[in-house]
């Protein structure tokens, strides 16, 4: 077993175990912190796939942005000193059965399909190539995403403040 495989199994275990803890933990704040480990594991998997820029973006945006937003959401919407954070047990058994069947089907499809493998030559650093693609082939999507982010920002700010009139 090469070192690459070893690192992959490490990150895969980290990702899957912490994702399981996210969905099974009783405490919502703990869930949020397990989510940090999940995002970190996923970014390690990106590195193993040769996607260095995506991995760094994952850490910056997910851990530095989305996770902080979620934590703010948790702390603004539930009384932390109050233990009774309703975690919910809505119909656990049917959900577990359904998800189990779905997971089995997905894994069996993924493992049995004969994928046509053809390794891409990934450059040592991808940011240069990604930047070139962003301002040539994908320039329209790039601009649209910028506008979308602006709209989302304005919309979120105005929606969150509406009550104060």
């Amino acid at each position, binding site marked *: 077993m090469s070192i690459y495989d070893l690192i992959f199994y490490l990150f895969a275990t980290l990702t899957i175990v912490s994702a399981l803890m996210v969905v099974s933990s009783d405490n919502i704040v703990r869930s949020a912190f397990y989510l940090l480990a999940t995002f970190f594991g996923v970014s390690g998997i990106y590195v193993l796939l040769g*996607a260095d820029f995506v991995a760094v973006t994952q850490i910056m945006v997910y851990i530095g942005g989305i996770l902080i937003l979620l934590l703010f959401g948790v702390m603004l919407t539930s009384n932390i000193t109050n233990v009774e954070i309703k975690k919910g*047990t809505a119909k656990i058994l049917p959900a577990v059965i359904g998800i189990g069947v779905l997971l089995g089907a997905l894994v069996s499809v993924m493992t049995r399909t004969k994928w046509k493998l053809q390794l*891409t030559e990934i450059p040592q650093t991808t940011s240069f190539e990604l930047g070139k693609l962003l301002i040539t082939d994908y320039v329209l999507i790039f601009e649209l995403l910028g506008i979308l982010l602006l709209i989302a920002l304005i919309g979120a700010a105005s929606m969150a403040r509406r009550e104060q009139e």
Partner: protein
Amino acid sequence: MIEVGLTHFLVVSSFLFAFGLYAILTRKNAILVLMGVELVLNAANINFVAFSRYGNLGLNGQLMALFVIVLAAAEAAIALAIVLNIYKTFGHVNVDEIDNLKE
């Protein structure tokens, strides 16, 4: 154990997807549902990047993953604003007890 290939990454993403879907289906707290959505988006992202590596598709898959990350950020901001409004209106964020858009 066999050498790590495309299948391994796809299996990891399947697990992430299933856990995310489980959170979306069973959790009552809206924030936990949001976390489930983030898990599902991450699973899709792993697939994009893995096929970009093993499918001879160049860097297009990685770009799609970047776009998904941007959309996830926008989605989280909007969803949090909605959740805050729900909290102001109802005093809680349990999605199974919310049956009105306003009081």
